[in-house]
């Protein structure tokens, strides 16, 4: 229907619904009343089972399952036509995708095929006077732009963590519809030759959403093990000040600052870093800095959103413990 919202349900590598899907469903659910439509969730994959109920519990009214071995792994050439057909058939007003590796590839191509437009990496979708408006950061986060659309459907990708998922409600009812897929093998022009996991290296510092950095205040290389633990829990990377690198406590490749790397995470946790200008140059674009330092006068606090005046040796173990508890609770959800 022309008032529906279609959510692209993304799966994790293990084949479960990804957290971003729940966030998208939450956003769609909140948007649905204003549009007066339903929330559809399209899930593409191979061997889909049990996903429908979970999607419904998280807010979907209708789950569209496209189950085909050809959709086992994401391939643009396979996914785009399937989703294109679904959208054409169901005619939603809004299509929401996650700003993920898949969403970045899929959304623009889908929009082009459907003859409509897309807003990428959005943080807000709303309806005003019957029009769908999408807000997204631009200019490296310096500005925000709000878009309206001249074509339909409105397609948007939403930034991870920008939307609150609903509380899971297993009592919710919904429809499940299996859709025929018929992937045209000849239409899949690309071929995946192999995948390489680089888990050991972790997230690249420059790309990390979260960076945990240590400085001279750590007093030795041992402290960095705790930083690594915290960074891993947060899916982030570990950085270091020049002082710490100079002292040989951490590899120079992780140096953040004027002569090191410029990083732009959403969250920067500075532990035992005083905040020399040389270091600050590397994090000038970062909006959310948490500083943990013993010295209440430390320069780093001036640029920090949150300041914890305490000995890192006491703070970090507690922080790690509590973050782990949070993550475990999240995983159970």
């Amino acid at each position, binding site marked *: 229907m022309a008032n529906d919202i279609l959510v692209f349900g993304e799966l994790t590598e293990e084949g479960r619904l990804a957290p971003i899907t729940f966030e998208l469903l939450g956003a769609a659910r909140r948007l649905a009343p204003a549009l007066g439509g339903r929330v559809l969730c399209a899930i593409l994959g191979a061997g889909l089972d049990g996903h429908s109920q979970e999607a419904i519990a998280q807010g979907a009214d209708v789950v569209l399952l496209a189950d085909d071995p050809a959709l086992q792994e994401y391939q643009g050439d396979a996914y785009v036509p399937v989703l294109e057909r679904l959208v054409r058939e169901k005619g939603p007003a809004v299509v929401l995708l996650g700003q993920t590796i898949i969403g970045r590839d899929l959304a623009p191509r889908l929009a082009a095929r459907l003859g409509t437009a897309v807003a990428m990496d959005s943080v807000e979708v709303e309806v005003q006077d019957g029009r769908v408006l999408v807000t997204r950061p631009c200019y490296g986060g310096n500005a925000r732009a709000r878009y309206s659309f001249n074509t339909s459907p409105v397609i948007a990708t939403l930034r991870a963590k920008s939307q609150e998922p609903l509380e899971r409600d297993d009592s919710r009812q919904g429809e499940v519809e299996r859709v025929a897929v018929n992937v045209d093998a000849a239409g899949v022009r690309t071929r995946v030759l192999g995948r390489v996991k680089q888990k050991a290296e972790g997230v690249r510092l420059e790309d990390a959403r979260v960076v945990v950095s240590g400085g001279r205040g750590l007093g030795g290389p041992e402290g960095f093990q705790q930083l690594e633990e915290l960074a891993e829990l947060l899916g982030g990377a570990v950085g270091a000040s020049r002082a710490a690198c*100079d002292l040989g406590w951490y590899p*120079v490749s992780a140096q953040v600052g*004027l*002569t090191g790397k*410029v990083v732009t995470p959403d969250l920067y946790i500075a532990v035992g870093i005083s905040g*020399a200008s*040389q270091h600050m*140059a590397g994090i*000038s674009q970062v909006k959310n800095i948490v500083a943990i330092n013993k010295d209440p006068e430390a320069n780093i606090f001036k640029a920090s959103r949150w300041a914890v005046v305490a000995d890192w040796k006491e703070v970090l173990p507690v922080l790690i413990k509590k973050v782990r508890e949070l993550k475990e609770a999240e995983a159970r959800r």
Partner: protein
Amino acid sequence: MAIEVKVRSPQLRLLLAGLSFFVAVALVPLVAALVVIAASQGMGEATRQVFFNIAKWARIFVYALTAAILLVLAYGPLSRLRLWLIGKREDRWDRPWERARFFLLYGIGQGRMPNDLYAGLMHLLIFWGWTFLFIGTVMLAFHDDFVEYLEGHVYLGYSLALDLAGVAATVGILMALYRRYLWKHPKMRLGSLWDDVALLWLMLAILLTGFVIEGMRVGMTELQGATIDVHGGIASDPNWAPWSPIGFLIGKAALESGASQGFMELLHKSLWWLHLAMATGWVAWVGYGKISHILLGSANIFLRKLSPTGAALAGTALPPIADFETAERFGAGYLRDFTWKQLMDVDVCVRCGRCEAHCPAYNTGKELTPMGFLQDIKRYLTEAGPRLLAARRKGEEVKEERAIAGDVVSFNTIWDCVTCGACEYQCPLFIEHIPKLMDMRRYLVMEQASMPETAQATLMQLEQRGHPWRGTQLTRTTWIEELAREGVEVPMFDGSQEYLYWVGCTGALQERNVRVTKAIVRLLLQAGVSFGVLGAEETCSGDPARRLGNEYLFQMQAQQNIETFKAKGVKKVIANCPHCFNTIRHEYPQLDGRFEVVHHTQLFAQLVAEGRLEPRTINELWGFPVTYHDPCYLARHNNIMGEPRQLLAAMDLETVEMERHRGHTFCCGAGGGHMWVEESKGQRINHVRTAEAAGTGARVIAVACPFCLQMFEEGVGSVPEAARKGMQVLDVAELLERSVAYSRAAATR
């Protein structure tokens, strides 16, 4: 003998050089003559027989040999000259009188030798001893062939002076042998080729055989009153003998030990031939080995780079690339890209190690060693030069030629240099290290785009944003707006003011340095100096681009500034950054931008002297010793060392000097673009220097350069002994502003 005594003050060094010159040229002969006249009454006949005990034909033989050996000698430098001419043209013949003066001062005057007192004294003894013996030999030949003037008092004085010269040279050689074998001085690191070692022993042998020959002659003639073959035969006199004191002692000892006449004759005769062989060998060697510095070094001092603007070192103002359109190659990548003078430099080096001993890169464990890279080029010049010449003569393509930049001289060597000028400042032979390294950087950057990551990022930053401070949140007018909010109006330069205050990128764009900029402006306003600033119209002076090898970018930036200056009617410039100061002063004239530049410490020293600023003791710094760090580009490159110290003295601050200060200062590590380029390996230069400052017991490091300020700020946080003391780093202007504020407060009370 682990202590090296170094003479810091340039005046004192010149004085010592002058003294040695005076002692050698005037005093020794004078004293010798006076002593003779006073003590040798009635010895009017005294003289000696030349070619005593030697066959008559020997005389002809010696002349023939001399002629031959001079040809052999000349072949050496000429063969090297051919190799130098692989290089490009360069004019080094301007201002000959000034060149002659430099030659007198630093060549004959040995002006830079006393920098290292032991080595300097050692060299002076050998140099003057040998010179006198050489002059004496020529005098003797003249006496023998033309006019017999070495008679009576003149002869006795001559004999005494030459014996003393021999003793001096022997002492010098023994000092050198001691330094090499027992002291094992680190400066000898590269100086132990067979050439260097054999030379010392040969010279010692020449001296000792000379003394024994003299001893035998004195023993066989004067001491026995024997008749000598002069004027048809006259009787010699034992009283003459003490005027050849060493010969006298040896001759006497020989006689007393009962040596037979036959033995003495034989010994004399054989040693005479040996001495002749060794001496002629030595002369021939002058054309080839380390000892060739007698000729090449002298020539090099005469041919040194002369600056039209008074730049102290060759590396102070880098030579421009005149025309990019026609340049065959940008910078120096291969042998032929160097100038003939640059190739001559590598042959001049005697591996004395003075450059290395003062090089901040070498002394913090990096690949660069100034004498080392010269030797590398020399080796390749010797090996491949003749092949290249032959190919050029035949008009053939040169095959398998190695690049100098990046191959013969390693990438890191070229990029380690902080252009501090210590090597050039120390080199007794005026070798010009920095322009060579910078020419190689130019080649790597402009031809190869091969540079450290951080250098590339800095050059991109300079190109795109006109300043080197990536990620700064300040603009060139932020500090002006901040001062306006405090009620201080900063005048904009419009041509009506006397001075343009050139703030510089660092002074405007780095929080810490903005404090210095503000202090300077307050002081200038207080003193009623007529000045203005350019604000947003300033751009980088070009120093970092030039020293990071992008000459093209430098010329664009400099050109733009020169145009702005001219359009606004700038005549005089105040700069607080010694790098900007240096570039505007010495390098803008190359692009037809001639402005009078003062450093803020110079101007403030003058204002204090004129009473326009009245410093007072800063109470909270009472009893806190201050140590002043000489910025390389102020002290070594521009000879400005007194004014900052005058200011500190005027503030009544307790000062203490670091071991390396004034012209001998040790770089903070930020020169030559290294403010933004990561060091390749080893200790951080700024940490070494901070530790040195901490070692003085000072609590405050006074600086006069924005980069030094940054480097020490980082250093006092990282070097434990500095951090423990809570050392402060302050620009001299900041100290002065505080101090003047006291007098302001006092005046209003």
